């Protein structure tokens, strides 16, 4: 098995990057107009978290499909690793989102369609793990949870893309934009993109760790059987 040789200083780069991003979120980016005080700055963390939660979902889908095709136990481990991280980031996104909602609109939850989608993503992750817990046989666990992941994936686009078109949404147009263009001030955009890159890097770092652990576990199992 060839291991990709990553330089050992790369986590430190991530560390510094995120410190810069955090500082920039508070001091480089200007105050947002029309938002209460400085509360809008939480958006620099909330949006990337939601983005990573969805990214994790996509990674899970890719490896679920691969598992269904090749039945390689490692693909199932990859899918589960992505789902675990996706769950964490989905929780973070929900928490930061509702903190912001509390400051802006005085309610922790508003039934805005985007809020509902992240809640449903959370439910999907919970269901995915509940299903995995309920199956003892490894191969069957992989096949069933991969099937559920595919099923969940085909249903999700309706909530993310269709419902907001029909319903009015609390989420500002800068984030979901019907024209497809980004409407933010450029400094805010810099910080947002920087934060996105940082959070994505964090996801892949932790994801790679989880997969390496799974590989080790697999090697131990095979050795135990020999």
């Amino acid at each position: 098995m060839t291991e990709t040789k990553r330089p050992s200083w790369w986590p430190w780069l991530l560390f510094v990057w995120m410190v810069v991003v955090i500082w920039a979120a508070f001091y480089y980016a200007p105050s947002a107009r029309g938002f209460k005080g400085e509360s809008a700055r939480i958006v620099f963390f909330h949006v990337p978290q939601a983005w990573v939660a969805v990214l994790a979902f996509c990674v899970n889908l890719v490896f679920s499909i691969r598992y269904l095709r090749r039945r390689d136990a490692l693909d199932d481990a990859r899918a589960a690793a992505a789902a675990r991280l996706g769950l964490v980031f989905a929780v973070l996104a929900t928490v930061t989102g509702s903190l912001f909602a509390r400051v802006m609109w005085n309610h922790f939850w508003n039934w805005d369609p985007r809020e509902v989608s992240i809640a449903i993503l959370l439910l999907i992750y919970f269901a995915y793990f509940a299903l995995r817990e309920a199956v003892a046989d490894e191969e069957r666990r992989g096949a069933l949870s991969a099937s559920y992941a595919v099923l969940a994936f085909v249903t999700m686009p309706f909530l993310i893309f269709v419902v907001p078109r029909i319903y009015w949404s609390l989420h500002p147009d800068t984030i979901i934009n019907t024209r497809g263009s980004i409407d933010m001030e450029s400094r805010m955009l810099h910080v947002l993109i920087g934060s996105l890159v940082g959070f994505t890097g964090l996801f892949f770092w932790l994801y790679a760790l989880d997969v390496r652990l799974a590989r080790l576990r697999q090697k131990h199992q095979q050795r135990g059987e020999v």
Partner: protein
Amino acid sequence: MRASSLLSEALAVLGKEWTSELRSRVALNAIGLFALTTLIAVAYQIGPYRISEADRPFLLAALLWIILFFAASSGLARVFVKEEDAHTAKTLRLAARPAAVFAGKLLFNLILLLCLEALIVPLYCALMGFAVRSVAGLALVLAFGAVALASTATIVAAIIARASGSGTLFAILTVPLALPLLVFLIQGTRAAAQADAIAAVFPALRAIVSLAGVTLVASVYLFPVVWHD
């Protein structure tokens, strides 16, 4: 050598389901009783007078689908769970191809849902004073909604039957998949209640039909995997 066509196999599976269901009536009873009990409880407390005119379409549409959905959840998982419980699943695997098994059981669940709707919806409208202006629109939403709901429920039932088979797991897995569908069903029902034109339900109906289509296509590929594992 398969002498029978897919359709005849599917209909045979459907026939088997109906016959065994009519004998024991477990699913019919469970679903029917659940729905009637919830309906009567809601109607007794709320009835036709307690909701203001403006709120009626929203609340009544939502309540209707809550009753229908939860009643359905109590009975739709049976099609697969009972095979595993009775250990007849292995025989069924040998006797029919996966597509036929899925189609037959899907049709069974669909008929069950349509019967449930036929029973509950008129009663609901009468007891709750739910005045629906576009009956044709409502009928369309109910019909295609049943297809979408039955599709989701059947494939999830197949999945959980191969896991622990518990009703709780069925509910946990179905809810995230059914929520977008429910949003559109309630929206469509509300549109049918508020507008005379049948076209008012079309936006929601488009979404419902797409959801049904997407779920069915995914199930066609996923069911053999789940069934034969």
